[in-house]
């Protein structure tokens, strides 16, 4: 998902009777559905995993501004331009809320930013794919935000209070993102021949990368088992991927578009869609830096940070002048 590669402690979750009393009390609170708050005692692994996960999630939101930001200048009507700008602006807000949530665990936003800029921290693979035509603004909202929402809705119940509250706010704001995307898809799919071709082309390019957003199958993963015990992960990746396909296939049909998968069909027995797995080799390449746009995305974030340094420093310099002047008065 937005945090596709969160490594947890690397071992199976301990059973309650192998835990020390503190760990056990902590786990029991989580099992009862209580929220963990910043100053509460927590196992080091819980803290580390959460910081990593919220960091990846936040990075994904702000790197995620770039592929859509690419089209703000070219949006075809005044209204579409305003909608797209408002949407991409929301993503900046989501990044901000999530960085703030991570800061409650003592990691500063600047530190997290530096990890992103140096390439040490990960972000979602999806944002390393290019946006090549206007229908991509439709497909991203429809598929990418659609997939994100699927993951974020359950995270509103995650065990860490600040994270859960950030997700509540984010989910509220997300609700228009997917709809505006589908709205663009409708206009394109039911529009001129050229528009329909753009819509189909866009679905062809974004289908498998969207499936990859849920991450590789993790029903065997020890990382996922621990994260689920801690309720910082709620569902298995395959579970959400299946749900996403079930939901999206009829929508594509409504649009008159063909999902680029010969194996996609309704299975009466399982009452689910059968579908092909994405190319996981490609996924691992993209997530480790070899996607079509990794270089541009990181370069853009680095440039914004470097070019903005004088601005941040200037404001801090002014603030310290102000407080010196105040102290001199007293």
């Amino acid at each position, binding site marked *: 998902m937005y945090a596709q590669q969160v490594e947890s402690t690397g071992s199976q979750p301990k059973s309650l009777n192998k835990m020390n009393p503190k760990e056990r009390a902590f786990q029991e609170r989580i099992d009862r559905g209580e929220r963990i708050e910043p100053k509460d005692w927590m196992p080091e692994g819980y803290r580390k995993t959460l910081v990593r996960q919220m960091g990846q999630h936040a990075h994904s939101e*702000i790197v995620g*501004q*770039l592929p859509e*930001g690419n089209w*703000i*200048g*070219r*949006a*075809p*009507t*005044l*209204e*579409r*331009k*305003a909608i797209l*700008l*408002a949407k*991409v*602006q929301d993503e*900046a*807000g989501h*990044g*901000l809320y999530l*960085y703030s949530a991570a800061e409650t665990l003592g990691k500063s936003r600047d530190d997290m930013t530096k990890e992103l800029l140096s390439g040490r921290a990960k972000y979602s693979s999806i944002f390393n794919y290019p946006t090549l035509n*206007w229908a991509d603004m439709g497909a991203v909202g429809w598929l990418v935000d659609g997939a994100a929402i699927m993951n974020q809705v359950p995270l509103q119940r995650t065990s860490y209070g600040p994270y859960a509250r950030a997700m509540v706010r984010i989910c509220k704001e997300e609700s228009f993102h997917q709809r505006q995307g589908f709205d663009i898809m409708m*206009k394109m799919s039911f*529009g*001129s021949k*050229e*528009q329909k071709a753009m819509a189909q082309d866009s679905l062809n390019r974004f289908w498998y990368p969207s499936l990859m957003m849920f991450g590789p199958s993790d029903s065997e993963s020890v990382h996922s088992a621990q994260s689920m015990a801690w309720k910082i992960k709620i569902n298995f990746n395959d579970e959400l991927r299946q749900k996403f396909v079930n939901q999206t296939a009829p929508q594509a049909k409504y649009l008159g578009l063909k999902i680029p998968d010969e194996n996609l069909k309704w299975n009466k027995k399982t009452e689910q869609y059968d579908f092909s797995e994405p190319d996981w080799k490609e996924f691992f390449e993209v997530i480790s830096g070899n996607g079509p746009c990794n270089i541009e995305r990181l370069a*853009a974030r680095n*440039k*914004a*940070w470097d*070019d*903005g*340094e*004088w*601005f*941040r*420093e*200037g*404001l*801090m*310099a*002014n*603030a310290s*002048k102000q407080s010196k002047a105040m102290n001199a008065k007293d």
Partner: protein
Amino acid sequence: MNDPRFHLALRMGDNSLILAQQNSKWCGHAPTLEEDIALANVSLDLMGHAQMWLGLAANIEAKGRTADELAFLRDTQEFRNALLCERPNIDFATTLVRQYLFDAWHLEQLGLLCAGSDISVVEIAQKAFVEVRYHRQRSSSLVIKLGDGSAESHTRIQNALESLWPYFGSLFENSDNDYILFKAGISELPASLRTRVVEQLSADCGQSTLTLPDSLFYHKGAVQGHHTENLGYILAEMQYLQRTYPSSNW
């Protein structure tokens, strides 16, 4: 088009549209997340104003053109925005000072339009005024702080002021239409705002160790559609889809 209000609406709409288009390119690239979000808010407000003013222009013209057609299907020489708005996004200092100079003019201009005699103009001006009051407060607060911040921030803001100054005057250029509007009591002559706006700017600069340029010289011609080279590129990008796929539904 004989109705002088058409030209007023076009000029107001084009200013907001071109500045919003330029500012919106910062989304995802601003110096802080907070600033990224704030600047997008300003752009969204300006886009809203552009929609209203161009909508009014289209109504007055009554030839079946829409606000979108005015925005996306006119060429550079038909645009009436001031040269300031089309200055490129060289760096964030230029962007901020461009906004700052514009806001000072904009608030004053909207205030006068609110007191005018034409109800359709007054309605739009009143809506915009409330938003622009905040724009003015925000941009002046940042310019004053950065002017008196670090040595580098001071230099950057000062340089931006100087490099934009000859284009700033374009906001105050009188056209033939302006005299007609003035006689009809719909708006003041653009040039008549200059003294008041400059007074406010120098008061800000006084708080901030900045020196406001005092030259009265500025590049003329925007009121007749004589722009800088950059506007062609702005429109090339902005109008690309409407030009490539004419009469499509988006």
